[in-house]
């Protein structure tokens, strides 16, 4: 077999693994969220399909696959159809640089890994706008605009906070950052607690998780840019959303909590455990706090997070020098 074919097959295997993980993760997270929210609201949650309703999502997925693919009459067909794919792509691309153990990265350990993460996640914006435009509906468009504004507003403090980590570690490589925490024996969450909090707030806002989920504020915008989607297309969007949530948590775990580092268990499991812990914190926040208004959302970023993150960056730089 020629070398390039081996490479190609190896890529195929990796992609398949990642997609499989994403699918399983999606199903698990939706179940987890429904169960958690039910507990917090003193309900039972899904309990009919499988033990503790664990197979509920399989049923839901089957339902979505079998539903009619309704295309709005006035929609821009190609854009509308491509939007979920474009939204899903960055979610998958993030996995490319994730380290799952010492000397083990899913794709390549880019020496600009952090920038790669920022670049890829910022590309989500295009997908959101494709959905907003393509649907040719005012709810979709307004939802897309809100999402775009929120993305742009929170992108800057987010990048500034992960830059703090890059400064602490002295590298932009994600694997390098994890390795630095392992080598030094402490996690960056301690010197970078401010950056960690900012990062956490920012990703929640970017993901549109409550209390920042006003993109989907039902009584204002129905479902935002998702309004005109149904069936499996909507399923893909939802999957992208949950995948993003997981990757954001995983990135936080790697940058601040030592990533794959941990005793006894394999590295990738530690990463997943840490990520899920953070995911559960997000869900906890989501179901606890009321939704903010759009102007409060933007004010929080421009008037509070941005100055604080800048200041934090300067302070950390001073301590390092």
């Amino acid at each position, binding site marked *: 077999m020629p070398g390039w074919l081996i490479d190609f097959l190896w890529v195929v295997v990796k992609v398949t693994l990642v997609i499989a993980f994403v699918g399983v993760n999606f199903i698990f997270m939706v179940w987890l969220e429904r169960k958690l929210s039910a507990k917090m609201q003193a309900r039972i949650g899904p309990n009919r399909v499988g033990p503790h309703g664990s197979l509920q999502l399989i049923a839901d997925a089957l339902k979505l696959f079998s539903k009619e693919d309704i295309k709005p009459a006035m929609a821009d067909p190609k*854009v509308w159809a491509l939007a979920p794919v474009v939204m899903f792509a960055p979610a998958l691309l993030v996995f490319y640089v994730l380290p799952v153990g010492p000397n083990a990265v899913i794709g390549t350990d880019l020496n*600009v890994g952090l920038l790669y993460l920022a670049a890829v996640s*910022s*590309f989500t914006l*295009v997908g959101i706008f494709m959905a907003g*435009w393509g649907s040719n509906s005012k709810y979709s468009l307004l939802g897309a*605009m*809100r999402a*775009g*504004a929120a993305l742009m507003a929170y992108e800057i403090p987010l990048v500034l906070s992960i830059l703090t980590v890059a400064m602490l570690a002295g590298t932009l490589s994600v694997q390098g950052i994890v390795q630095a925490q392992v080598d030094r024996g402490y996690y960056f969450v301690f010197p970078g607690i401010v950056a960690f909090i900012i990062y956490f707030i920012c990703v929640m806002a970017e993901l549109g998780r409550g209390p920042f989920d006003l993109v989907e504020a039902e009584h204002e915008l129905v479902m935002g840019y998702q309004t005109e989607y149904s069936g499996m297309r909507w399923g893909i969007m939802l999957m992208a959303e949950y995948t993003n949530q997981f990757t954001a948590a995983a990135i936080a775990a790697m940058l601040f909590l030592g990533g794959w580092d941990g005793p006894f268990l394999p590295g990738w499991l530690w990463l997943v455990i840490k990520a899920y812990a953070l995911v559960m914190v997000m869900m906890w926040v989501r179901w606890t706090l009321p939704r903010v208004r759009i102007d409060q959302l933007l004010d929080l970023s421009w008037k509070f997070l941005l100055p604080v993150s800048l200041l934090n960056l300067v302070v950390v730089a001073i301590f390092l020098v």
Partner: protein
Amino acid sequence: MSLQVVAFAVLAALILYGSYKVVASPLITHSALFLALVLVSVAGVFLMLDAVFLAVVQVLVYAGAVMAVIIFAIMLSEQREIGGDPSAQRMGFGEELRRALRSRHWGLLPAAAAALLAVLAIAGIGRLGAPAAPGAASTSVADVGRALLTDYLVPFEIASAVLLAAVIGAIVLTAREGSDARDGGRS
């Protein structure tokens, strides 16, 4: 035919078709989306040229920031065109090209000038001696950063000043006059 040639061919095709659509697409929203495609593809070309950092910056700045600005500008200034005219959706390639070549004031002249430019440039390239194939270049972010802050410090500072001026200018230009400035200037 190596993998590289295939990759290059795919990227070049995406870039050129995307560029064409940026110019010729009857819908401005499609233009913007094709521009995004072109910009990402250019990042791919950068990767082929071993400029990893530049490729990432290209995606981050262009596909992230510039695209966002362009999309917002379109949404705020071209409400009529969003969603578009259904007939434009069904326009065939020939019809699209024919309409694109018709410039409002100068007919075919811009297209002719651009074509001439391309022909001349390619003719010039054809006469280049093929440079020796270079060895692998390893350029890390650290190298770029060091170059920026030593050899290119002055341009770097000037670029910072230009960016600052652009930010202030954009805010001043788009801030609405009067009392609704507080809520109006954001979205």
